[in-house]
């Protein structure tokens, strides 16, 4: 199986925290859940993958290309949802469409408005008037509208009610159906990932504790229970 993302020995040192030799692979057509408690290093890992923070060591390959050499080319095919940081809440989705049309080569106005319709998001209402779930769906619609091959999402379900969470997780499952797309999603709500993630990578204190398929983990848990 081809890997869409390969992370090798990623290290990032801060004064009071460091990521230590983070390595994992994300095959095409799969969803990986990055789990761990708050402050474990999930967001830093995602930022390091996206080159938003300078890494001290290691390498990141996306679509077989090195992130350091082909950053712009790679980012054209990645959809990103960050925990913090998005457009002003005084902008409407129509405004955001106008902005993104000038940024992504593959941005599709039709696809963006289709997602807005599918997610029941009014296109001419400022996002300040949206609920928390609607705001997250808007972020996801923006992340999807340039037809990315890989979605990287930081805590997309935090602060949402179970129904909104379910809706969002369904979107990710639809996204990988053609076996060509993948999702890397961080969450501290493990139950969210139980049903959709093919791989689970558990980070604690900046280190990977385990990275296994969901089935392997379930088997392991079952054996643990038997003993």
């Amino acid at each position: 199986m081809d890997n869409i993302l390969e992370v090798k020995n990623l290290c990032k040192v801060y004064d009071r925290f460091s990521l230590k030799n983070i390595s994992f692979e994300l095959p095409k057509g799969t969803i990986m859940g990055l789990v761990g408690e708050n402050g474990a290093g999930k967001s830093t890992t995602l930022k390091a993958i996206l080159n938003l923070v300078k890494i001290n060591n290691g390498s990141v390959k996306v679509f077989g290309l090195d992130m350091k050499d082909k950053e712009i080319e790679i980012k054209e095919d990645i959809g990103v949802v960050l925990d913090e940081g998005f457009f002003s809440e005084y902008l409407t989705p129509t405004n955001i469409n106008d902005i993104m049309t000038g940024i992504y080569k593959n941005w599709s106005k039709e696809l963006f408005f289709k997602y807005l319709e599918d997610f029941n998001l009014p296109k001419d209402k400022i996002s300040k008037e949206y609920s928390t779930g609607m705001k997250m769906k808007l972020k996801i619609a923006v992340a999807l509208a340039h037809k990315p091959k890989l979605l990287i999402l930081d805590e997309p379900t935090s602060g949402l009610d179970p129904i909104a969470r379910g809706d969002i997780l369904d979107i990710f499952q639809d996204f990988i159906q053609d076996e060509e797309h993948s999702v890397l999603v961080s969450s501290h709500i493990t139950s969210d990932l139980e049903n959709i993630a093919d791989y689970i990578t558990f980070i604690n204190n900046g280190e990977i504790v385990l990275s296994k398929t969901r089935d392997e983990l379930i088997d392991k848990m079952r054996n643990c229970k038997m003993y």
Partner: protein
Amino acid sequence: MKIVLTKTPKVQGLLTKDMLHLRRFKRIIASYIFLFTIAAILLFITDRSIWLTCLLPIIITVGAGIFALSSFSYDENTKIDMYVKSLPLTVKEIIGAKYVFVIFLTIIGTVVGLLLTAIIFTFFIRTTISSDHFEILIISIAGTFCVSLLEAIQIPCIYKFGAEKANMQIYSIIVVLVIVLVLLVGGIFYWIELLSLSRIGIESLLPILLIGLIAIAYNVSYKVSCRLYEKQE
């Protein structure tokens, strides 16, 4: 910088973002321009004074500069910087878009200010400008260059210290800049006088010198901002 900007339509996306931000303040901007224009007209009607009319270019340019630089605070408040970094944009495109936005607004401010002055002179004052008032007008236009220079200094400060702290830095910069400009302009005039160069039209080269100075300042400012942005995390 020119090559980067013309070759990259992606800058348009970022410019659209800042223009949309500015649209939120359209009433405040309109009121600002309207109030000073009315004040200039009233001052002429009641007092036959035209100094405020002559100062309109600098007043409107300062306003435009403030609104242009407010886009940095807006970016800081929405924490959009990290998100922008996740998009397929180079550092030159991100920084270049900001400079285009600030320069564009400053030019628009100067043009609007000059137009308003011309309109008031044509329709209200209806007299030829005296040498005293011409001097005020020249100082006002020269002031718009100073605003550009201040912006060229302030933008890297914003990337270094953040929008809020940079506003504090700017006060010390203003003091230094005023001293430097007074010494520079005074020195130029002193040498023109001393060498009797005014007879051969050296004074007419001053606007070109100022434009050259602004161009160099923006070039250096842009490069410094790119460096500072690259270092940011």
